[in-house]
């Protein structure tokens, strides 16, 4: 991986693969990225040049991560515990119901450690905490448990 500054534009990162194909990423100063793949017959010129917004870049990075599991993965430990963000849809069944009603711990064995709502985080919500559509729940449990929790919370 080599870097080249592009004054006035940003920074270019170059990578030559084991198959001698060359690709580069330009980090623009406004946070967008351009991904370039080079032509086989003219290695100085881009065959394709894709301009990605920050959000698109994030999704792409996510897909490229070697330990890829799901876009909501916060952290994986070797002990078999995973933490995930699960978002409630606007017309979720749980919209307006309290947390206790989900019987989450009994059903799936996962813990809800926090609820993110707009710009604030509510740590350790009590069973009487009232959920709303758009909330993001941070849950910790086994892989199976977290998958079950996602299914449970996905109820419409």
């Amino acid at each position: 991986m080599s870097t080249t500054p592009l004054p006035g534009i940003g920074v270019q990162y170059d990578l030559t693969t084991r198959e001698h194909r060359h690709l580069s990423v330009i980090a623009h100063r406004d946070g967008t990225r351009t991904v370039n793949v080079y032509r086989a017959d003219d290695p100085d010129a881009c065959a394709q040049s894709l301009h990605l917004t920050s959000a698109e870049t994030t999704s792409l990075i996510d897909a490229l991560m070697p330990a890829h599991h799901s876009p909501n993965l916060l952290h994986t430990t070797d002990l078999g515990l995973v933490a995930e963000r699960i978002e409630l849809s606007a017309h979720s069944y749980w919209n307006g119901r309290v947390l206790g009603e989900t019987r989450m711990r009994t059903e799936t064995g996962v813990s809800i450690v926090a609820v993110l709502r707009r710009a604030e985080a509510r740590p350790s919500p009590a069973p009487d905490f009232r959920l709303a559509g758009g909330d993001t729940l941070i849950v910790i449990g086994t892989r199976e448990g977290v998958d079950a929790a996602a299914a449970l919370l996905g109820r419409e």
Partner: protein
Amino acid sequence: MHSALFLIEFGAIILGLGLLGRVAGRLKFSPIPLYLLAGLAFGTGGLLPMGASEEFVAIGAEIGVILLLLMLGLEYTASDLVSNLKTQYPAGLVDFGLNAVPGAVAALLMGWGPVAAVVLAGVTWISSSGVIAKVMGDLGRLGNRETPAILSILVLEDLAMAVYLPIVTALLAGVSLAAGSATLAIALGVAGAVLFVAVRYGRHISRFVSSDDPEKLLLVVLGLTLLVAGIAQQLQVSAAVGAFLVGIALSGEVAEGTHTLLSPLRDLFAAVFFVFFGLHTDPASIPPVLLPALALALVTTGTKIATGYWAAKRAGVGVKGRWRAGGTLVARGEFSIVIAGLAVTAGIEPALGPLATAYVLILVVVGPLTARYTEPAAAWVSRRRTPSGPVLGVPSQPGAPEAVQDQDPVGRT
């Protein structure tokens, strides 16, 4: 009522520019030539001479130049400039030799005298970084190997402006040799000092200016820039250079924030500046200088292509990339007009303004075309054994790969 008339006139100008800008966007062209044409249409000897808004437009034009250069300074960090200067100065010298000289020679041939020669040298020398950056983005060439070579030439030209503008300002003011040298020494000293301070203490300057509140940031940066520009003007160093140095000194987050805040202001006042320049040019004076402008455009298109070719070769880029680099550098634009504007306001050679206008109008239109077609044309010339010429079809979508021309079937997947 004077103010009512002013509002009507100024409003009509701005609205007209907005509509022209939309036309330019539709045609995927830089709006600069249209703004110039609008100025020509309304100015002295035009369709609708302006009256009430003249004075304000003149001030607006000055602010436009200052903002153009401030934003240019923001684009670069001081370390960018210094490292480019260290490694790329031969390319900068070749660029100067090949492109400034034709302008100077042309002015001397037309018998305009040395001051006009220096001005016209600047007009033909400086490529338009704005137009070029946009063209490269549109053609999907930002990642190409020749791009750093192109950018470093643009950086060096912009840096050279910091030395060149004070010289022109001094010459136009008609100061004596001694006073001129003193001015130049001051200018160089100040520019050097600012670069040094910006490399060393850029963080502190930025911290002083920095503010979380966009409103305060806007006021502080704008105030600081105008103040420094005014002081620079007072010292006969040229307001534009003062603004450029302020832009260089600001870095990091402040530069980012300022960039987003000031972009709309820059766009407004820069448009006013181009109109102002057109206003002061009598359309009737253009036809007589059309031939020299065309000849100059032709020669300096060739010299810019040679410059780009040489710079890319020096950077170790292949033949195709060298032609691309050459073709990309052809566009001249805002800075040629800024330089000519100084001369027009100072009132030297009356034919200089019309010539610069015609020259920029030609090259701002031709530049994007040479950027696109120089490489295929060069390939075609070198391959003339085959009877089929290049297919100059419709320009491809922006960002599409340029696989329009006939080429080997290899690599086209």
